[in-house]
């Protein structure tokens, strides 16, 4: 009996997990997963000691918010197979209800600290998701996506009408430092806000992971894979979708509450289409097929959004290219790419990949440099035509309309593509070799 139980304890969360060993591994697995949580807590705790700058703190705070938001989105996309175009609705409403609650607390001088305020956002997200989800989760697939888009439009336009609640153009502002202090923390300084966000982030990650390991969480996957068949094992897929949608709204609302505490502001941009798109991009680029995928995506996308916008005006273009590349060449996202290597790692065959991968760096860098040069030169010539053809990049001043620059650009691209063909052959052979080793060891790839 105990063996049966331990079998189930190591039953894979991911389809690619190899055949599990009995009890010994389940004990290890348990320690391993606790270790993972402790490691995560340690990272969140020490990050501000490593990255001390004000920018770093701001960006890390945004990452924490985006992690919760993206994970909540993936309860729909990756776990239950629901593509929503309006998830920011619950994020934004969570933000607004939080900020109004904060202002009410400040006005009435209630002894409530800002730490608990995201709960208000969570409840708002939950209530509105239960309301709107009642309609949208009656359908699945494309119809669900379209309804989610319609609801987003609806809430977006009502924000213009209900000005007293949504604050019109300038939105609603607050002062987070005016709520109850905890010891000598008033959560005014960014580092204190960071820790507030990090704490909520850790809690939400743990809770959302735990949700995947419940009967409901397992049936989400079943509905995603084959909604029809779930009806013949006693489940109403609509109820599963509805619960998933409601809980996703709860966590999105918490994220929105944290965002409003972070910005001390709530405006219509929070539940706009851009925000709904962002969370989709982050989740997809990180990898919707694995629980940790959206965490990677949230970190990467937030980082790029904040860093790229400093160095280039067309950062959204790069962003779009990255998304297209993910959809086309790595549909499993970053997490999918990583997990693809797991059986090879276990088989000890990962070294066989190194030569090919190292070789690939050369053409990848060449193509990247060529493409960036191309994009930036075109941007300069078209958008900044008034400034003339002379531009500056990476400290070098050159003529964007001149032959040398264009020769260099096209030459780099061409060389990159040529070397790519050769290097990808080497990489593919390394991949085949490593796979053969893994197969021999009985690790299915």
């Amino acid at each position, binding site marked *: 009996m105990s063996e049966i139980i331990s079998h*189930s304890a190591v039953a894979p969360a991911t389809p690619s997990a190899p*055949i599990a060993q009995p009890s010994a591994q389940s004990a290890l697995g348990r320690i391993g997963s606790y270790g993972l949580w402790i490691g995560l807590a340690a990272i969140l705790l020490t990050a501000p000691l490593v990255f001390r700058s004000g920018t770093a703190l701001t960006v890390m705070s945004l990452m924490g918010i985006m992690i919760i938001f993206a994970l909540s989105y993936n309860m729909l996309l990756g776990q239950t197979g629901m593509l929503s175009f309006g998830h920011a609705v619950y994020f934004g409403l969570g933000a607004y209800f939080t900020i109004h609650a904060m202002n009410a607390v400040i006005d009435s001088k209630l002894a409530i600290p800002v730490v608990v305020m995201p709960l208000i956002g969570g409840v708002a997200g939950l209530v509105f998701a239960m309301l709107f989800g009642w309609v949208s989760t009656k359908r699945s697939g494309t119809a669900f996506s379209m309804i989610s888009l319609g609801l987003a439009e609806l809430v977006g336009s009502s924000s213009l009408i209900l000005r007293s609640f949504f604050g019109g153009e300038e939105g609603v502002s607050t002062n987070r430092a005016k709520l109850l202090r905890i010891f000598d923390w008033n959560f005014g300084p960014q580092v204190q806000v960071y820790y507030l966000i990090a704490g909520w982030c850790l809690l939400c990650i743990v809770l959302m992971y735990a949700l995947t*390991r*419940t009967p409901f969480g397992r049936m989400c*996957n079943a509905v995603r894979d084959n909604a029809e068949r779930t*009806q013949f094992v006693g*489940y109403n897929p609509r109820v599963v979708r509805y619960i998933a949608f409601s809980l996703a709204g709860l966590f999105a609302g918490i994220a929105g509450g944290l965002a409003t505490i972070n910005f001390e502001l709530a405006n219509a941009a929070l539940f706009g289409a851009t925000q709904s798109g962002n969370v989709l991009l982050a989740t997809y680029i990180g990898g919707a097929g694995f629980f940790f995928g959206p965490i990677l995506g949230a970190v990467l996308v937030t980082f790029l959004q904040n860093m790229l916008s400093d160095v280039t005006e067309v950062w959204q273009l790069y962003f779009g290219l990255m998304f297209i590349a993910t959809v086309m060449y790595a549909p499993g996202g970053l997490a999918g790419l990583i997990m693809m290597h797991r059986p090879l790692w276990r088989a000890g065959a990962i070294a066989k990949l190194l030569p090919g991968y190292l070789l690939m760096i050369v053409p990848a860098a060449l193509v990247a440099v060529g493409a960036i040069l191309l994009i930036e030169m075109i941007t300069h010539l078209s958008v900044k035509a008034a400034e003339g053809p002379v531009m500056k990049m990476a400290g070098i001043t050159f003529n964007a309309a001149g032959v040398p620059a264009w020769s260099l650009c096209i030459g780099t691209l061409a060389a990159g593509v040529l070397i790519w063909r050769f290097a990808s052959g080497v990489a593919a052979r390394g991949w085949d070799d490593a796979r053969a080793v893994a197969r021999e060891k009985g690790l299915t790839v």
Partner: protein
Amino acid sequence: MTATTSAAPMSAATTDRTAVANAVPPALEIRGLKKNFGPAEIIRGVDLSVARGERHAVIGPNGAGKSTLFNLISGLIVPTSGDIRLHGESVNGKPAYQINRRGLSRSFQVTNIFANMSVWENVRCAVLWPRGGRYAFWRGVDNNADVAARTHQVLTEINLLSRKDIPAGVLTYAEQRALEIGITMAGGADVILLDEPTAGMSKAETERAVELIRRISEGRTLLIVEHDMSVVFGLADRISVLVYGEIIASGTPTEIRNSAKVKEAYLGEEAH
């Protein structure tokens, strides 16, 4: 009414079928069932009664409406008219999940599994509802010993325990068919509908599948669509012949074998 049906001992049904059949309503009773798809009448007035514990085969040429009949009984589609009773209670027009919760489970002619989930997860999904898992999002699933034990038992029975951690989508065809049966039986339903469970299998695979079907239908009511006549005549207590949406004959294997009507309409042309 419910009390008498559920109180009746299951094993009695196999030992003394007629006596039990008189005492309790049939496991499945279909009256005047019709289904039109637009102008096309696909099921044209079917009457069928399956006693508790009976193994009942439905045979008939391709396109006769056998799968449609299963879709109607299991709640996948709604009848145009007529009545379907499960243990004496009407389930007509009820959604599939409610019919399933009342103890009727079905398999599909075209394999219908959770392809991206592990074999273990596939079976466990079918175990959850009747074991009280329901929609619970506040309880863990991996530490549920009862669910794990039943999943383990089903996987052992369908001989897929050694494959439990691989995605169901990469199983061989015969293994997927076994899993299809496993998902169907896992919940412990007492009325089981199997739609061509051995279709596309080799001789040896068919034999193993029939053995499995015989075992899992022990003490249960089985309604099975099957093309392989040796399987049908070896397994079934009673046989109904469906042609163009109508049951033209219903009886014991011997009666069906000797029926001139059946020979003319079906067996004659199909004997190969």
